[in-house]
């Protein structure tokens, strides 16, 4: 495991040089807000991300998720929505130590669509929140995460 990481780090260093050569600019990157990714409960996370906001339940958000995660390390999700003017998508996993998995800004040139793979620690709801015109919409879906039988 360690050798793989050392090789990766070497590769990263080499690639950073390569990336700079391509005119890679830090300005284009989003800021990372550490507090959003701290270990906390889902309630705390929601309060922090959406203070004083109502997360309206919507049936206009479709989630494609397995009923049972084959392995909690890789849960594939596809999100799509017919809600117009969505500018941000948030993915949360209710019982993860860090409930916020990721948040994406969505430019109008993009469909409201996202595919991703994330980790789940135990059976719980996956919660997807969409922001559109300063309103917040949510949907949730339960995914079972089990201690495997013989898959290890």
């Amino acid at each position, binding site marked *: 495991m360690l050798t793989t990481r050392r090789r990766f780090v070497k*590769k990263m260093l080499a*690639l950073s040089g390569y990336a700079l050569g391509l005119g890679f600019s830090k300005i284009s*990157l989003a800021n990372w807000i550490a507090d959003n990714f701290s270990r906390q409960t889902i309630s705390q996370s929601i309060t922090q991300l959406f203070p004083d906001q109502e997360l309206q339940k919507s049936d206009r958000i479709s989630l494609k998720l397995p009923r049972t995660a084959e392995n909690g390390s890789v849960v594939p999700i596809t999100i799509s929505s017919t809600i117009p003017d969505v500018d941000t998508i948030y993915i949360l996993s209710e019982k993860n130590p860090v409930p916020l*998995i990721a*948040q994406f800004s969505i430019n109008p*040139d993009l469909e409201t669509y996202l595919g991703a793979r994330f980790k789940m620690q135990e059976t719980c709801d996956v919660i997807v929140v969409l922001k559109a015109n300063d309103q917040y919409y949510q949907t949730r879906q339960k995914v079972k995460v089990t201690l495997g039988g013989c898959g290890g």
Partner: protein
Amino acid sequence: MSTIKIRSKRFADYTLVRTLIAHPMETGHNKNDATDELIPAHFIQTLTFKHNGKVLSQCQMGYGVSKNPFFSFKIKSAKAGDKVSISWQDNLAYSDTLEHIIP
């Protein structure tokens, strides 16, 4: 070789862009079996998706994203020859970027 792979496919109403990134997305809570020490956290924090130089999506993520992250987007309107790019930066300040031309 890059840490980033990008594939695109044009459909009638949209262009699907998928990316796969080689990254450990290490949480910092796993132990090295051999040394019994904690493996330090090493995960992508920000990612930017651009189309012809314009930012279409900026992402903040935590280590809850799976190892070797995958993301997919749909651009409403793109043409053959358009450029898309994926850039990422992690908590140890490593970064990478890749440009892809839509076929």
